[in-house]
């Protein structure tokens, strides 16, 4: 053990740590879930979260305490993902996601299953796998909204797109995912119907 550090250094460090634990570390589960959906790989997700926390701790003085730590951390995570992971884990999209026209499931199930009972038969893993198949721009929007419950405004800030883009991507992402889940339910015999 080194000798006791000067009195004027130690207390702020403890304070920094306590503040970081209270405001940032509590969001570890959120960061992990988002990282896992972005990288689609548990080991990359671990590394991405670790890196995000290190960057966040280094930049902690720039964060305005008591504002929105979750959105701030997710912004750091997304930048780290784009800069260091996307290049090697996934290729940027070549399709224009904003022209994808989703398929209307409700009109298919309206008569036989308007309460969507078939959803209940689909397990967690299958839903996550279907999310992982969405185009990246849809996937990140849907995860921030439906998995983490962020507002359109917060999502627009993190993804650096206008709110109108968040709305339209979320609409398409949810409908596209619903179509995939419906196809799966038909395939498994959870519901009668023809796959889209």
């Amino acid at each position, binding site marked *: 053990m080194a000798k006791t550090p000067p009195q004027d250094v130690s207390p702020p460090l403890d304070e920094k740590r306590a503040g970081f634990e209270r405001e940032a570390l509590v969001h570890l589960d959120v960061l*992990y879930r988002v990282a896992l959906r972005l990288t689609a790989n548990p080991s990359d997700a*671990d590394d991405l979260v670790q890196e995000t*926390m290190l960057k966040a701790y280094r930049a902690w003085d720039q964060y305005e305490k008591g504002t929105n730590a979750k959105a701030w951390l997710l912004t750091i995570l997304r930048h780290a993902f784009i800069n260091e992971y996307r290049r090697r884990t996934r290729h940027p999209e070549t399709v224009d996601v904003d022209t994808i026209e989703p398929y209307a499931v409700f009109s298919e199930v309206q008569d036989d299953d308007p*309460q969507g009972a078939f959803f209940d038969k689909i397990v967690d893993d299958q839903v996550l796998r279907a999310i992982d198949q969405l185009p990246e721009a849809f996937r990140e929007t849907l995860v921030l909204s439906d*998995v983490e419950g962020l507002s359109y405004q917060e999502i627009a800030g993190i993804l650096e797109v206008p709110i109108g883009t968040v709305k339209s991507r979320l609409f398409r992402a949810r409908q596209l995912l619903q179509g995939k889940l419906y196809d799966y339910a038909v395939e498994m015999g959870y519901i009668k119907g023809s796959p889209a």
Partner: protein
Amino acid sequence: MNCRECVDHLYEFLDRELTPELEREIRAHLEDCPPCDEQYDFEELYLKFLRARCRTQGAPAELKKRVLRELFGE
């Protein structure tokens, strides 16, 4: 408000992202229009289902230890 407009605002309504005026207009339309009302119910169930399926997983305990070790040397 017609059915098309009502369905266009579906998710914004369920996400509570609409202005109170627009929300009122939609509620009024849903009361008079059983097919739209049914579709709103269906989509609401779908969103609840998504949340229930996707929020169960947390960070592994090992990752938490690793982060603490890296940040604070423990």
